[in-house]
C-alpha cells in the first residue's frame, strides 16, 4: 500500500522535472519560430526574388523611367528630414525637459501625435491645408511656393511623420543628466548657450544621432503620406517606395523586389548603426 503510493509519487516527481524542461524549450521554440516565420522569412524572400537572376532585375528596374531619380529623391528628402528634425527635435526635447510653462504636457502629447495618426491621414491633412482647394494653398502657389505635388510637400510629410523620433531619443538622456555639471559651468561664468554647447550637447550627441538615423531609416520607406501629397510625378516627385508599389502593381515583382532590396539594405544598415550606438551608450553609462 505504502510502496504503491510511493511509486506514484516518484513517477509524478520525475515528470514534473521533464515537464519543466519541456515548458522551457517550447517557449523558446515558439519565440524563435514566431520571429523567424514572421520577420526573417519575408525579408529573405524579397532579397531572394530581387537577386535571383543576378543584377539583371536591378538593372531593369533602374532603367524604368524615373527610377534613379526616385532613389535619389528618397535619399535626399530623408537626409533633409533627418537634419531638420535633429535640430528641432533636440530643441523640443530640451524645452519639454528643462522648462516649465502652461501647456507643457499638451505640447508633449502633441509631439506623440504622429505615432497615433495614420500616415495616410497625415497626407490628406497636408493636402487639405496646402492643396489647390484651400486658400492657404492657393496663396502660396501665387507666391511661387508649391507644396502639394512638389518636393516641398514630400519633405513636409516626412517631417510630420518622423517628428517624435529625435524627441523621444533625446528626452530620457536629458532627464538622466545631472545638472551639477551645468551649475558648475555657470558658476565659472559660462553663458547659457556656451553651457549648452560644451556640457549638454556632447552628452546628448549620441542620442541625437540615434534619433536622426531612425528618422532617416523611417523616411526611406515612408509611403502613406507621400503617395497622397506628392502626386507621384515621374521624374519629379516619385519616391522609391511609390516606385516599388508601381512596379508591383504592374506585375513586375522581381524588379520591385530589386529596388526594395536596395532600400532595405540602406535602412537596415542604418538601424544596425543605431542599435550599436544606443548599446554603446548604455555600456558606457555608470
Amino acid at each position, binding site marked *: 500500500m505504502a510502496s504503491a503510493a510511493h511509486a506514484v509519487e516518484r513517477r509524478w516527481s520525475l515528470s514534473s522535472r521533464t515537464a519543466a524542461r519541456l515548458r522551457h524549450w517550447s517557449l523558446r521554440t515558439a519565440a524563435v519560430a514566431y520571429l523567424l516565420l514572421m520577420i526573417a522569412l519575408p525579408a529573405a524572400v524579397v532579397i531572394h526574388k530581387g537577386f535571383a537572376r543576378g543584377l539583371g532585375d536591378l538593372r531593369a528596374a533602374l532603367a524604368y523611367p524615373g527610377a534613379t531619380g526616385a532613389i535619389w529623391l528618397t535619399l535626399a528628402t530623408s537626409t533633409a528630414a533627418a537634419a531638420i528634425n535633429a535640430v528641432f527635435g533636440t530643441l523640443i526635447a530640451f524645452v519639454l525637459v528643462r*522648462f516649465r510653462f502652461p501647456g507643457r504636457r499638451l505640447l508633449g502629447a502633441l509631439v506623440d*501625435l504622429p505615432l497615433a495618426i495614420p500616415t495616410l491621414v497625415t497626407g*490628406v491633412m*497636408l493636402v487639405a491645408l496646402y492643396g489647390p482647394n484651400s486658400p492657404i494653398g492657393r496663396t502660396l502657389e501665387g507666391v511661387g511656393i508649391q507644396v502639394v505635388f512638389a518636393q516641398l510637400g514630400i519633405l513636409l510629410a516626412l517631417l510630420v511623420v518622423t517628428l517624435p523620433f529625435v524627441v523621444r531619443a533625446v528626452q530620457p538622456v536629458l532627464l538622466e543628466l545631472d545638472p551639477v555639471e551645468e551649475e558648475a559651468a555657470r558658476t565659472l561664468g559660462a553663458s547659457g548657450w556656451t553651457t549648452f554647447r560644451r556640457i549638454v550637447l556632447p552628452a546628448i550627441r549620441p542620442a541625437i544621432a540615434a534619433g536622426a538615423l531612425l528618422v532617416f531609416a523611417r523616411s*526611406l*520607406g515612408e509611403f502613406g503620406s507621400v*503617395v497622397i501629397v506628392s502626386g507621384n510625378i515621374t521624374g519629379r516627385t516619385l519616391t522609391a517606395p511609390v516606385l516599388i508599389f508601381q512596379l508591383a502593381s504592374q506585375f513586375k515583382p522581381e524588379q520591385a523586389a530589386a529596388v526594395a532590396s536596395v532600400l532595405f539594405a540602406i535602412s537596415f544598415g542604418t*538601424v544596425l548603426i543605431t542599435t550599436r550606438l544606443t548599446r554603446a551608450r548604455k555600456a558606457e553609462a555608470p
Partner: protein
Amino acid sequence: MSAGAGVRRKHDRARMRRGRGVAVRGALVTVCVLYLAVLLLAPLGGIVWQARKPGWSALGDPFTRSDVVHAFWLTAIIALITVAVTTAFGVIVAWVLIRHRFRGRALLNGLVDLPFALSPVTVGLACVLLFGRGGWFHEFFAARGIQIIFALPSMVLVTIFISIPFTIREVQPVLEEIGTEEEDAARTLGASVLQTFFRVTLPNIRWGLLYGIALSAARAIGEIGAVLVVSGLIQGRTETATLYIYRAMEERKTASAYAVALTLAGVSILILAAIEWLKHKRTREDEA
C-alpha cells in the same frame, strides 16, 4: 555714494540677465510651438475645415454607405486580430529574450527591430512573393482552396508584421527591471508556472504591456502601404478605412475622403490620450 550706485548696477545687471533669460526661454518655447503648429495643428485645422465645408450635417453622409461601414468594420477586425497575436507572442518573445540565455539571442533581438527598417510596401511585396502566383507557398494554399492574397489573411499577416516590435520593446525593459525574485518567491509558496505568471508577473508588467498594446493598435489601424499591395482594393470586401480614403482621393471624392480621414484622426487622438495616460502610469511605476 558710489558704493550704493555699484550695488544698484549689479542688481540691474542681474535683472537684465534674468530678463534676458526669460526672454530666451520664451523665444525657444515659441519656436517649438510654431514648429508644431505648422506641422500638426495647421493641417489638423485644415482637414476639419475641409470636412465641414459641405456642412456639418453632411459629415455623417459617407457613414450611411455600406462600403464605408464595411471598411471600418474590416479595420477593426484586422486591428483586433493583430493586437491579440502580437500581444500574446510579444510577451513570449520578450520573456525568452530577457529570461533565457542562449547562443543567437543577440541575433534574435536584432530581428525584432527589422520591421522598422522595411518600407510597408516591401512588406506587402514580400507577402505577394510568398503567397501570390509563383510564390513559395502558393501551391500549398491554392490546392486547399484558401485565398491568401486579395483576401483577409494576407492583410492580417502584413499588419501583424509591421506591429510586431511594439509590445516586445515595451515589455522587455520592464521584465528586466522587476527581476525574478518575486517569481521565485511565488514558486516557493506553491504557485504553478501559470499561476506565477498571471498573479505575479503580469500585474508587474501591466502598464508597459498596455502601452505597447496601444502603440500597436494605433499602428495597425493606420496601416496603408502593405495592405494596399496585398488587398487588390476590392470594394466592400478587402477595403479597410485607410484604403477607402486612398480610393476616395484617387476618385476625387474628396468630401467622403475628408470625412473618413477626420474620423480616423479623431480615433487616433483618443488612442493618443490613452497612450499618454499609460506613459504617465508607467513612469510613475518606475519612480516607485
